[in-house]
């Protein structure tokens, strides 16, 4: 006799199911049609991401769990999934022309991006340690492959190998920490862990949290686990770097919020000091180490390390306002990063790509619109009002001050001023140095990405926009508490 088994509810996981089935179909299409199908697969992958986006938006409001509580959909998950899907879609749009010119336009790129996005969505929705690890691994494994997508290029393969080895190390640390947490609480589910951990925890659980934090810090490239970032960002093909800096980083940040706020709310004081330390070190490294960089991709790597530090300020607060700050920060960071990379991808003369800051000399005279947009992105990254980046920093600092982390907020402001130096130096190079010759005209896809992100960054201050974004982020953050 076969006992009746209750089928799990599939509704909340509909976007993930769309992506996974779609990825399988894309593999088939690619395998049957061969290399000619690259264009088709890329567009289909984009369509899949859009379909998943629609599915996420159509999900009923409120909190729903399924698959034996391993998978949760709430306001926070939906908000972050929308951001992840937008980031991945932009990564595909920005890659097509570059990949074709470099002769690496293989159809697997779109499929791997879709699978990586699926991993991000599983991470964002993870409600137990097993789902967390599986999502993280799915996302990172696809990322390792696309880092070395330009397999005949030494630097690209080096980037992939470095990313893989260090990523495997960080996964090991995360797993070790997770096993300690499981061992000392007797459950893998986040609500279960939260119910167990109250008051003063034992030394074992703290050790577990430290290891989990180290593993996650690797994934979000927060100092002191950031060493891989500049090399991988420099070596990977530029559209891949744009992808790494946007969607996966955001998903890993969502994961950090999910595990620390979802599983360890009872022992805030224990992990708060870890996050505060990581945040301060990241901000410092992000602003000091970027000063000497000549390669703009390396500079963006340090910039992303610093930005993760600022976003972690919100997490360190451990309050709903703090999480709201993180969510707003990551949304604005996504737009700024994609915009900046759209310009970096347009730095091309003939067939050769240029990556040095000096190559932008006098771009304001040869390409006034592009230079203006990049200047807006950089001023925004530096946090200068009234651009979007100012609001991003403002909300996390405000949340930190509310949570009585005044020293952390002050350090954040100081490092942000130091960081402004290297952002504004690029603006100076573009506007006041002698031109070195014009770049090729920008590809249409890049124009779209740059136009939309610039409009977002430049017009964020318009009355009504900040309050609406804030309200959506606030609703997302409150769903965690």
């Amino acid at each position, binding site marked *: 006799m076969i006992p009746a088994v209750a089928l799990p509810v599939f509704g909340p996981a509909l976007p993930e199911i769309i992506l996974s089935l779609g990825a399988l179909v894309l593999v088939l299409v690619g395998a049957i049609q061969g290399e000619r199908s690259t264009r088709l697969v890329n567009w289909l992958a984009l369509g899949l991401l859009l379909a998943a986006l629609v599915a996420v938006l159509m999900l009923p409001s409120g909190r729903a769990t399924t698959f034996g509580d391993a998978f949760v959909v709430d306001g926070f998950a939906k908000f972050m999934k929308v951001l992840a899907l937008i980031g991945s879609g932009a990564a595909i749009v920005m890659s097509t022309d570059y990949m074709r010119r470099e002769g690496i336009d293989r159809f697997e790129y779109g499929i791997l991006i879709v699978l990586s996005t699926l991993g991000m969505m599983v991470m964002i929705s993870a409600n137990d340690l097993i789902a967390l690890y599986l999502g993280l691994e*799915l996302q990172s494994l696809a990322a390792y*492959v696309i880092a070395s997508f330009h397999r005949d290029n030494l630097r690209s393969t080096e980037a992939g190998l470095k990313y893989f080895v260090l990523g495997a190390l960080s996964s090991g640390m995360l797993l070790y920490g997770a096993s300690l947490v499981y061992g000392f609480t007797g459950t893998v589910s986040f609500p279960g862990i939260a119910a167990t951990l109250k008051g003063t925890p034992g030394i074992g659980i703290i050790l577990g949290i430290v290891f989990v934090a180290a593993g996650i810090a690797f994934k979000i490239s927060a100092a002191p686990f950031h060493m891989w970032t500049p090399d991988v960002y420099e070596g990977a093909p530029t559209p891949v770097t744009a992808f790494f800096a946007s969607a996966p980083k955001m998903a890993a940040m969502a994961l950090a919020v999910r595990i620390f706020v979802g599983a360890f709310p009872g022992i805030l004081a224990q992990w708060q000091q870890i996050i505060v330390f990581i945040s301060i070190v990241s901000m410092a490294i992000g602003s000091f180490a970027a000063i000497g960089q000549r390669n703009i991709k390396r500079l963006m790597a340090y910039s992303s390390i610093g930005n993760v530090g600022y976003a972690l300020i919100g997490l360190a607060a451990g309050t709903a306002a703090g999480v709201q700050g993180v969510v707003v920060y990551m949304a604005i960071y996504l737009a700024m990063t994609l915009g900046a990379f759209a310009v970096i991808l347009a730095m091309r003369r003939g067939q050769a790509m240029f990556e040095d800051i000096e190559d932008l000399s006098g771009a304001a005279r040869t390409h006034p619109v592009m230079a203006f947009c990049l200047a807006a992105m950089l001023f925004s990254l530096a946090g200068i009002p009234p651009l979007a980046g100012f609001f991003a920093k403002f909300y996390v600092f405000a949340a930190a001050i509310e949570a009585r982390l005044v020293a952390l907020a002050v350090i954040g402001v100081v490092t942000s001023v130091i960081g402004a130096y290297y952002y504004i130096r690029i603006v100076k190079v573009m506007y006041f140095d002698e031109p070195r010759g014009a770049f090729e005209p920008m590809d249409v896809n890049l124009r779209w990405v740059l136009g939309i992100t610039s409009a977002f960054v430049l017009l964020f201050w318009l009355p009504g926009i900040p309050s609406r974004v804030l309200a959506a982020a606030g609703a997302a953050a409150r769903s965690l508490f």
Partner: protein
Amino acid sequence: MTVTAAFFYLFSTVTVASAFMVIASRNPVQSVLFLILAFVNAAGLFLLMGAEFLAMILVVVYVGAVAVLFLFVVMMLDVDFAELREGSLQYLPIGALIGVVFLIELILVVGTWAIDPNLIRVPAATIPPADQVTNTTALGRVLYTHYFFAFQAAGLILLVAMIGAIVLTLRERLGVKRQDISRQVARTQETAIELRKVPFREGLKDVA
């Protein structure tokens, strides 16, 4: 009962002895064969515990796949293990020191071991009584019903690994003769056969 005990001692003695031989044997092929012996005896130990599914999996996966793979690699790679091991004796003092330190730590840990009674909780999936549910069924229920989601996600991870391996290593090789069945079938008499008139008593010298 005594028969079970006898088998237990048989299996465990052979397991430990063959595990020792894995590291002691000079010939790497013999090492792998001893490893297989250890696996099979461990499978016997599982059988004694009533875990028949694990026992069979151990034989199928470890002996059937992993050990054969080892054997394959050992035979493919021409590694002289005896030469590799030559200088290992000079590290013996340091190795012994570290071993002793670990031993002391282990004794300290085991000596002060105390399990907090609060930590013993109901596991996520309880073990059903063995006389009602075979352990194949029990494992299947846990793996394919309770952890259905994790199982599917793991499958997708393996898919990514496969795509990645193909993307990074598959190369179209030029200058290789391949069998093209459609071309073979499409051949007609005109393209396949050439009729030449060979003049009498002249040989083949200007035909080709």
